[in-house]
């Protein structure tokens, strides 16, 4: 499984008559962290959820245009949504441990796809927990309910759970907004390690966080992709006035 770049072309999204994404076109590079920033309600999360088609779950949402992962057409005809979700992992805003043990949480995805025997499953779980930086903290309590972990641990568990299905890209939807500062730093540290193997896209309200971990930045405003570029360029010399004003108010 290699990391693949994500190509978004002419992406439009309507909720009923309301258009919330307008003609978004952008290439999101592989093995980099790309941050999506912008004010609340501008379509950041919506854009993120178009990439793994979680947007399909929203009643009344209609998407046109295309999203490609490498040469895989996410919105292609006859594409199995579950296959998309397997290729593109999602870590949500609030950590949601599934109502089962720590081990079963991580094994949840692999079990759906029926990969390998028990031994291989154990190896997958351990490897995923290691990559998520949680193994040492939970290796002696894998049978415990996942709900007993701290919030920060739960979020890394959710990350491990997503990693266990061997995705090609990882989406993060404000993954640290529910965490304390120390857990946040730890989580960011894991994300930085992950970009060596995955295409990482992170929605964040926290501009400092974007500066700390992002290589590329997309600035979304009122459903439009106003500006994108390397983090250095966007943060130090934004081309658009809207970007400058948002950055100015946020910093």
């Amino acid at each position, binding site marked *: 499984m290699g990391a693949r770049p994500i190509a978004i072309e002419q992406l439009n999204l309507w909720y009923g008559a309301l258009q919330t994404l307008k003609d978004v076109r952008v290439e999101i590079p592989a093995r980099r962290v790309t941050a999506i920033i912008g004010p609340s309600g501008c379509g950041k999360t919506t854009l993120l959820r178009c990439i793994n088609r979680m947007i399909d779950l929203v009643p009344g949402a209609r998407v046109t245009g295309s999203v490609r992962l490498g040469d895989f057409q996410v919105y292609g005809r006859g594409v199995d949504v579950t296959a998309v979700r397997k290729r593109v992992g999602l870590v*949500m805003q609030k950590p*949601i441990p599934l109502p089962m043990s720590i081990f079963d949480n991580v094994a949840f995805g692999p079990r759906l796809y029926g990969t390998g025997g028990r031994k291989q499953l154990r190896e997958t779980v351990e490897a995923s927990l290691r990559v998520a930086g949680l193994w040492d903290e939970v290796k002696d309590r894998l049978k415990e309910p*996942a709900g007993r972990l701290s919030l920060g641990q739960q979020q890394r568990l959710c990350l491990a759970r997503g990693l266990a299905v061997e995705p090609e890209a990882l989406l993060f939807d404000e993954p640290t907004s529910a965490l304390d500062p120390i857990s946040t730093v730890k989580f960011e540290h894991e994300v930085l390690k992950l970009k060596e193997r995955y295409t990482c896209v992170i929605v964040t309200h926290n501009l400092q966080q974007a500066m700390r971990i992002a290589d590329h930045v997309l600035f979304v405003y009122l459903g439009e992709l106003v500006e994108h570029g390397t983090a250095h360029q966007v943060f130090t010399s934004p081309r658009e006035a809207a970007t400058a004003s948002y950055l100015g108010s946020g910093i």
Partner: protein
Amino acid sequence: MLQRRHIHDYIARHAMLAATLFAGGLVIAIAVALYLRAHPLLASQSLAALLRGHTWAPSRGEFGFLPFIAGTLWVTAVAAALAVPVCLLAAVYLAEYAGPRVRAVVKPLIDVLAGIPSVVYGVWGLLVVVPYIAETLGPYAQRHWAHLPLLHTDYTTGFSILAGGVVLAIMISPAIIAIADEVLRAVPREYREAAQALGATRAETITRVVARKALPGLAAAVVLGLSRALGETMAVLMVVGNWPHVPTSIFDGAYPLPALIANNYGEMMSIPLYDAALLGAAFLLLVLVLAFNLLARVVLVRATREAV
């Protein structure tokens, strides 16, 4: 002014406490009253003998409760076997799949089902279920199920455990469906998203995550339904045959505890100990329902601890 508000607060709080104590105290008061009234019987015969006795012959002073306990459990078990799977599937459909329009039509219909008086169900059982079992299902079972346990029969009048179970199953369904539906809908959307984000299909999401998260509540829904089934009287006594013996097949008649009490209380009170025996039956029924709830509670607590 402040003073008055504090007095108000004080009165409200204690009034609510009194109401709560009253409701809780009722159960204890009923249990104690039943026990005291049943006491003469217990004084004359050992509890074990009463519970194991097969013969119910009040005029000879024989009060064997076993047929009635067995009848209650059989009818409830049949009702559970029929109602629980269907109700849970219906609740899952309503909570997870049905669109707002389907819900808007089906939910009120199910609620109406809950409001139908039990005697109406009894009449329906008498006119529809009993004849169907006597004329169609019973003869079929005679020919084809003769060697099956629980399902064999030589002859059935239709007044049977099965008839009672069918009527009961329909009576307890609305409550089970309504509660199970609420419980499933109370599972936060994020759990469904978390599972689906990993590539789970809708069915996988429901069976592996939502149902699991809702397990304690679903169990509570079933327990509530079955508690009602244990005590339901009217509809059951109309179709169950009221034959005091220990059943071996669902085509046998039976005589559940509530029917025993309802049919006999008020008659033949001159027979010694009869009154005490019927109140003993009521006490037994109360104990049965309490024990069932307690057991369910223990199972629930364990399930919750494991699942979270």
